[in-house]
């Protein structure tokens, strides 16, 4: 408590959400969406570190063709756990539950989400799921691959499948609750004057994400339940030895898990729209097209799961239909990329760190999206499916897209979240290091994949070594690039320059209140009279209410 008081300088002592209350209890029982966002931020960072350690172990093992660093059993657990932790405990919650939680109410001029207690509950559920999963990892780990394919997962694996399944089952409910909260909040709590087409595109993207969360997540929950039934009670659902159908599992699993890919990328697209518009001070080109393409992705995303089953024994006609639909779902993403690029036309483009991430995002997402067409093309997918080509493709989407979007957004809103500026020079430097490291890691994997290197291989034929050495070198650079922001962001929380309410001179509602914002976000209810991304000289932009000056607060 004492330490926090010196944190405030006497001249700028005012009440904000960070210093409104002190003590562990004030955090663990908070109903403030901003504090819950920080709880999520801390937790997803923790899980990202664990997933990252597994990634480094994978890359070290694959440095040489022989399986010499880890045993086969351990390697299989390591890549499985890398996938499970990164997907279910980092990528899915990362942007919506941290940045989304913080910004959805602020961007629509609300005091909080519609259901603050449910919001806190969702964090506890997420944490419970995470703790159960960590228990499973410590108790002995899981080796099924993150995809849990039956009958390996139900009959053959001797690892902690059930415990991990329970962890994922539980954490799914936190997604559902977050999605529900966002939908109700966006429908009912927009500030006066904030019509649907004045909403920032970040909100549209989160609305689309929330739809997938509440429609898709129950299906994966059901799938995991069925898997548990078969594993525990030997009820024949998936294993043909007891009368089940293994391909049924894949249908059920991908019916959720393909839309889940869009749960991971859509929020990053929302961040991207904010960054591109705000750092070029331009209204987004084709606002409605970008907004509706998010909804189109959410809807069509539910119709393409079969492209994961092209070689799984699905019928030829199903293959053709899913191939067609998978090509079609690429169009809304293409529309977004073209509109972001066109937004820059005649803009005033800054080279601040968030913009560097945003530009990197466009390049990498383009490659990630276009290589998705190779997989929609059944004839090519037959060859590259289950090879490193797939691994490279989805890392271009998940890391090049989601992670870059997340980091760009984190830097962009850091002054608002923490009330401090991050060091700009280090920010730009690490963004560049991450971009270079990422491409060096994953570009060679496209080549290794087309040459035929299968994924999930502990040892591999020596002719693939050169690509793996490049990958491991790239991953080391990427690792360093990711540690730098971790250090300077923590550093800046105490030593960074104090942030102004609106350090980037932007019109969004979140910039029209103090940094960090007060608990109730705005001192008066904002009335919105402007369009989204309507830029004006900073002195013309009104601040909502006045800052309450208080010298002392206990």
């Amino acid at each position: 408590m004492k330490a926090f008081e010196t944190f405030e300088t006497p001249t700028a002592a005012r009440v904000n959400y960070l210093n409104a209350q002190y003590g562990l209890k004030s955090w663990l029982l908070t109903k403030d969406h901003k504090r819950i966002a920080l709880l999520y931020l801390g937790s997803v960072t923790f899980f990202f570190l664990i997933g990252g350690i597994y990634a480094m172990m994978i890359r070290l093992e694959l440095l040489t063709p022989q399986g010499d660093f880890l045993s086969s059993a351990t390697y299989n657990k390591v890549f499985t756990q890398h996938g499970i932790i990164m997907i279910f405990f980092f990528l899915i919650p990362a942007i919506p539950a941290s940045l989304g939680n913080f910004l959805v109410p602020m961007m629509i001029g609300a005091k909080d989400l519609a259901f603050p207690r449910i919001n806190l509950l969702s964090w506890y559920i997420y944490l419970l799921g995470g703790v159960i999963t960590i228990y499973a990892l410590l108790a002995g780990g899981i080796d099924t691959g993150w995809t849990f394919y039956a009958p390996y997962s139900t009959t053959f694996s001797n690892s902690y499948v059930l415990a991990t399944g329970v962890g994922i089952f539980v954490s799914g409910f936190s997604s559902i609750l977050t999605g529900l909260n966002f939908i109700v909040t966006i429908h009912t709590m927009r500030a006066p004057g904030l019509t649907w087409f004045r909403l920032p595109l970040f909100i549209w993207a989160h609305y689309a994400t929330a739809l997938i969360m509440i429609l898709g997540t129950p299906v994966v929950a059901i799938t995991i339940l069925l898997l548990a039934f078969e594993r525990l009670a030997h009820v024949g659902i998936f294993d043909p030895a007891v009368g089940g159908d293994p391909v049924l599992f894949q249908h059920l699993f991908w019916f959720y898990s393909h839309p889940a890919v869009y749960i991971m990328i859509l929020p990053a697209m929302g961040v991207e729209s904010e960054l591109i518009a705000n750092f070029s001070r331009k209204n987004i080109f084709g606002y409605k097209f970008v907004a509706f393409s998010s909804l189109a992705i959410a809807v069509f995303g539910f119709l393409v799961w079969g492209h994961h089953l092209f070689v799984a024994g699905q019928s030829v006609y199903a293959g053709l239909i899913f191939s067609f639909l998978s090509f079609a779902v690429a169009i809304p993403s293409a529309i977004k990329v073209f509109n972001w690029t066109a937004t820059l036309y005649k803009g005033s483009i800054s080279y601040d760190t968030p913009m560097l991430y945003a530009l990197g995002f466009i390049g990498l997402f383009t490659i990630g999206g276009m290589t998705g067409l190779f997989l929609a093309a059944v004839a090519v997918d037959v060859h590259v499916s289950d090879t490193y080509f797939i691994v490279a493709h989805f890392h271009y989407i998940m890391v090049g897209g989601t992670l870059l979007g997340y980091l760009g957004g984190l830097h962009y809103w850091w002054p608002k979240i923490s009330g401090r500026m991050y060091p700009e020079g280090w920010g730009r430097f690490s963004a560049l290091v991450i971009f270079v490291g990422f491409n060096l890691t994953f570009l060679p994997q496209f080549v290794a994949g087309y040459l035929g290197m299968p994924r999930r291989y502990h040892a591999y034929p020596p002719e693939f070594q050169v690509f793996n050495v490049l990958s491991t070198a790239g991953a080391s650079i990427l690792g360093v690039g990711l540690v730098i922001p971790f250090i300077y962001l923590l550093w800046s929380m105490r030593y960074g320059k104090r942030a102004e309410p609106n350090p980037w001179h932007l019109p969004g509602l979140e910039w029209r209140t103090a940094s960090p914002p007060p608990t109730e976000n705005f001192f008066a209810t904002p009335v919105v009279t402007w369009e989204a991304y309507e830029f004006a000289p900073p002195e013309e932009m009104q601040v909502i209410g006045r800052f309450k000056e208080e010298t002392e607060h206990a």
Partner: protein
Amino acid sequence: MQTSWIPFVPESASTVSGKVDALFFYLSGVTVFFTLLISGVLTFFVIKYRRRTPHEIPRPVAGSHKLETIWSVIPFIIAMSMFAWSAQIYFQNSRSPKNANEIYVVGKQWMWKIQHSTGQREINELHVPVGRKIKLIMTSEDTIHDFFIPAFRIKADVLPGRYTTQWFEATKPGTYHLFCAEYCGMNHSGMIGSVIVMQPTEFDNWLSGNSSQQSPAVAGQQLFQSLGCVSCHGANGEGGRGPALAGLFGSRVFLTNNQTLTADEGYIRESIENPSAKVVSGFSPIMPTFQGQVTPEQLIQIISFIKSLQSSNTQSATATPAVPAPKAQPQVPASATPAPNRR
């Protein structure tokens, strides 16, 4: 199409590999073009429209329906061209040619067991001749595996409890990788082997040099007797209390529930393991299950025997009302003829 001289492309050794590579080059070309176009425009804008003074506010630019239409329709047309091209290759190759030589593949943790129709067995190796169509009939003893030959650009999951097939025609002698591409547990990355493509004469020598083993059809006939199938289905599959089996494979079957199906490997297997699931019209469900009594490999042998019944006994196929005459159903050549037909 010879592609092996192009870097970053695996050896091309089957009749489809060139077609897949050609499509791959088209997709790569489009990808490189759009990546360069977008990053080029991006770089140009970022330099040309860089912020010159801290307080400048550019004029808003209105959207353009014309541009939106252009960049929705053109990518859609390109995507459809990719779809059409890929669908054509996929559809053409989806059906195995009728005159293909059949080879049985059984996957298990962590090895490939392969048996030629003439009886030769191999483990983790597959010997095939150049220029002959080969059809793989595959199943798994435990979990899901995947039979992947990069040089042929083919791959298909190998499932427990059912049969999947894929076919190829090798074009170039050599030794190529065989990988398991579906994660199957601890030694997944050790479930690898070689595909050895030989000249036809060499291959025939290799076959006859290993001919001490029984063909699967002969082994199946012995099982057919030892398991007591003969008492209901007849020694030559002519039928009795059970439906006739001669000529069954590939024919239309009428069921007691008024449905019809084409008898394939999966149907025969189901009828052995779960006989009451699909009972032939005119018969009662009296057959006991053989689930757990026959291994996947023995199942393949019995199926292979039943398939062999049709070439010798085709005339009897029309005799019984349970299996009506297939209308101009092309007959699959018997897979178990002692010597493979030379081209």
